[in-house]
C-alpha cells in the first residue's frame, strides 16, 4: 500500500488520521460550550432576578449594529464552509479567495464591535463598579453590562483567534500544503469558526432582542 506523504506514522491511514483530528476538535468545542455556558448561566440567574433591568438595559444596545454583525458572521460561516469545499475539489485559488473573504468579514465584525464598545465606554455603560450611566431604570443595571461585556468580550477574543487561525490556513493553502487528499487542518479551523458563529446566534437574541 502506497504511503501518503501526509500520513503520520502512528496512524493506520489518512481517514483515521483526519477522524482523530476532528474528534479532538469536537472535544475542544465541547469545553468551549461549557466556557460560554458559565456566562450563560450567570445571564439566566441575573435575568430572572432583575427582569425589568434586563428589559430596560438591553434598549441601550444598538439592534441595527447587532443585526448587521449577525448577518456578517453568518456569511463568514458560509464562506469558510465554501473554502473547505473548494479544497475538497482541489480549487486552490477559490479556496484562498473564500478564506480571505472570511477574514475580512471577521474584521468587519470587530470594527462594528469597536464602535459599539467605544459608544458604551463613552456613556459609562461599563461593568461592575465602573458603571456610571444613569439612564437605566431597575435594580443593579451594571450587572447587565457586566454580562454583556463578558459574553461579547470572550466572543470577540474568539473572533481574534479565529482570524489568526484562518490567516495561518490561508498561508498554508497559498504554499500548497493542502490538497483534496489532505485538508483536515482547514476543516478543523472551520469547525472552530462555525462554533464562534453558533455562540453568536444565541448571544444576539439574548442580549439585543430581549422581549
Amino acid at each position: 500500500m502506497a504511503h501518503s506523504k501526509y500520513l503520520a506514522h502512528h496512524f493506520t491511514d489518512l481517514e483515521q488520521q483526519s477522524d482523530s483530528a476532528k474528534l479532538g476538535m469536537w472535544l475542544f468545542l465541547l469545553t468551549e460550550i461549557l466556557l460560554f455556558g458559565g456566562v450563560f448561566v450567570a445571564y439566566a440567574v441575573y435575568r430572572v432576578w432583575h427582569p425589568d433591568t434586563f428589559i430596560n438595559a438591553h434598549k441601550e444596545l444598538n439592534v441595527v449594529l447587532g443585526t448587521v454583525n449577525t448577518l456578517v458572521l453568518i456569511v463568514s460561516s458560509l464562506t469558510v464552509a465554501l473554502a473547505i469545499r473548494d479544497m475538497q475539489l482541489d480549487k486552490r485559488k477559490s479556496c484562498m479567495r473564500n478564506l480571505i473573504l472570511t477574514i475580512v468579514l471577521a474584521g468587519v465584525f470587530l470594527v462594528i464591535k469597536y464602535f459599539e464598545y467605544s459608544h458604551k465606554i463613552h456613556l459609562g455603560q461599563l461593568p461592575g463598579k465602573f458603571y456610571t450611566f444613569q439612564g437605566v431604570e431597575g435594580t443593579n443595571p451594571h450587572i447587565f453590562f457586566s454580562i454583556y461585556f463578558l459574553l461579547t468580550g470572550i466572543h470577540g477574543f474568539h473572533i481574534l483567534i479565529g482570524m489568526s487561525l484562518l490567516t495561518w490556513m490561508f498561508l498554508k493553502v497559498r504554499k500548497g500544503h493542502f490538497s483534496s487528499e489532505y485538508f483536515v487542518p482547514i476543516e478543523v479551523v472551520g469547525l472552530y469558526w462555525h462554533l464562534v458563529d453558533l455562540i453568536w446566534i444565541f448571544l444576539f437574541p439574548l442580549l439585543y432582542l430581549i422581549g
Partner: protein
Amino acid sequence: MTHHHKHHITPLWVYLAIGGALLFLTVVTVLVSFVNLNEITGTHTVNFIVAMIIATTKATLVALFFMHLIYDNKFYLFTLLAGILCLMIFIVITMFDTEFRGQVNPDEGRPIVEQVPSDRFIERAHHEDHSSETHSETTTHAE
C-alpha cells in the same frame, strides 16, 4: 467503522440554501422581537421562547450542514450533544438553587434578591453615606 474513502462533498446549492435560510431566520427573529407577543398572549415568556426556537433552529442548521454533522461520523454529534446536556444540567440545577432556595430557608433567600436601589451599588453607597444625608436612608447593604 465506516468504509468510505472519499470525503462527502456537499453540493454548492445546499450551502447556499442553508446560508439563505440563516439570513432569513435572522431577519425574522429581529422583526418578531419588535412585536410584543408577551402583551398579546398575556405572559412573560413568549417573546423569549420564540427567539430561542429560532436561534436553536439556526444553530441546528449550522451544526448539521456547515459543520457536516449530518454526513460525518455520528460520534461527533454525540460529543456536541454531550456538551449541550452538560450545559443544560448546569443551568437547570443552578436555577433550582437560585429560584427556590428561599422556599427551603426563607432567610437565605432574602439578601441576594433584595439588592441596593436602582442607580446605586455597594461601593458608592458607602461613599455617599459620608457625603450626603439624603441618600443614606435609601441605601441598604447587601450581605
